């Protein structure tokens, strides 16, 4: 696993150099969602006997940990196609596993930062949740799954433009349909079957139940652990495909 720390540290140094603007950028989307859907649209709405804002925030946490975790693909693309730093990793005596773990954990770190920003903003709005180990386990697992998938997609695409297609067709729809903004139980039965197959749906359920202080949702946890292993496997085997 030599080299894992080098890969991870590089991403952390980049985050460190950009921290103020990064935190500012992390705060834009959640603030907009909170204002538009939380305070604007859902001020008088209730979901499952709770104010809509309490339903929305765990969903935003899940969606944000997904997008920021998956967002590591942008950094990898820049390193691969623009800066060519990826060639430095290819020429180094490190294993694919070290590379994948380094990048995936830096995706998780970015996700944790973005979630912290959301929680800070929502605490200002006077909403409080239970932030026990189950909550953070859900956030980390969700970010891990999508960061590993981000590494996979960054390895198999052939240009920076292809990456936008993956985000537009997979990540953005999932952010809206994975139980973030509305309970999927409100959808027709057939659609529910499809939405329950989305990884984000399970992450949202796990995070929401933990945030409500209702304990661990074992079924979702089990599915996310399986998905984390599968995405790690995919990422590991995708690294060699980046060599021409």
């Amino acid at each position, binding site marked *: 696993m*030599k*080299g894992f*720390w*080098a*890969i991870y*540290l*590089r991403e952390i*140094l*980049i985050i460190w*150099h*950009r921290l103020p603007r990064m935190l500012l950028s992390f705060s834009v989307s959640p603030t907009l969602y909170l204002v538009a859907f939380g305070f604007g649209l859902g001020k008088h709405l209730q979901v499952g006997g709770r104010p809509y804002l309490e339903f929305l925030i765990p969903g935003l946490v899940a969606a944000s940990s997904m997008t920021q975790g998956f967002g590591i693909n942008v950094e990898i693309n820049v390193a691969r196609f623009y*800066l*060519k*730093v990826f*060639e*430095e*990793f*290819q*020429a*180094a*005596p*490190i*294993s694919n596993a070290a590379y994948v773990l380094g990048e995936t954990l830096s995706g998780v770190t970015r996700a944790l930062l973005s979630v912290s920003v959301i929680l800070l903003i929502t605490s200002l709005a006077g909403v409080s949740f239970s932030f026990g180990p189950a909550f953070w386990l859900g956030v980390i697992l969700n970010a891990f799954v999508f960061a590993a998938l981000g590494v996979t997609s960054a390895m198999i695409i052939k240009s920076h433009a292809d990456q936008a297609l993956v985000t537009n067709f997979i990540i953005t729809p999932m952010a809206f349909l994975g139980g973030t903004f509305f309970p999927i139980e409100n959808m027709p039965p057939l659609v529910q079957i499809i939405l329950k197959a989305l990884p984000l749906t399970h992450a949202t359920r796990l995070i929401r139940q933990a945030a409500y202080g209702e304990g661990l949702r074992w079924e979702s946890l089990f599915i996310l652990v399986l998905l984390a292993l599968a995405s790690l496997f995919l990422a590991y085997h995708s690294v060699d495909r980046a*060599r*021409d």
Partner: protein
Amino acid sequence: MDAVRVENLTKRYGRLEALRGISFRIAPGSLFALLGPNGAGKTTTIRILCGLTRPTSGRAFFYEVDVFASPVKAKKMAGLVPQTINLDMELTVAENLLIHGLLFGLSRKEIARRSQELLRFADLLERKNHRVRTLSGGMRRRVLIIRALLHRPRILFLDEPTVGLDPHIRRKLWGLIKMIQQQGTTILLTTHYIEEAEFLADRVAFIDEGRLIIEDTPGALIGRLGEFAVDIVREKGLETKYFRSRKEAESFALTFTKRAETVTIRRVSLEDAFVHFTGRKV
């Protein structure tokens, strides 16, 4: 034992044959130059040897270590200075060196000590904590070279190290490369600058369209043509004849004195050898 041994290396991209069975050996501590025009296969050769590109077939060894069967062991022995500057622009010079050192398994203490030594060697000590994006092209190129040297590679691959640089910066880098070689590092250099190969290399291989045409010392390659050349500029173009001595060249040139052609006598260069053996200009 050879520092580098390449046997029948080929690389195909679909129908395009980038390398068509290249073989060569490099003696320890020597500087070997692959000289050829753009698209000849120089960079592909280096990329394959450094693990960035998969070969289609062939074998390669660094000090008898099979490069393709034991890539991690082979990579530890190699340092790569790529053609494109692949430094992290947002990080400082010291941070770039730190990441490289950790990738090659050096301790933080060793990285700090070695970075200091190399930054001094490359006259970059004052720029240690500057972000790479603030450095000039020549400085970035020097950072790239010392980064490749940080883990004390036994073999250094320099892919067009002076491309696009001003002549005086190029000369400065030549001095740096010579000093690295004098410290015992084996160097494989690719270039399309004839004078660079002539100045730096112990042995030169001409490469063209994925084939290695001929390989020898610069002096021997030039010597195969002669010592003096006579250029005759006619309406249909330039013609060059080679001679063993100045006397032979002069007597040949004198036959043109009463005609309209422009005739020049000069020493044979490595460029003459390249044109002669490959049939084209670099």
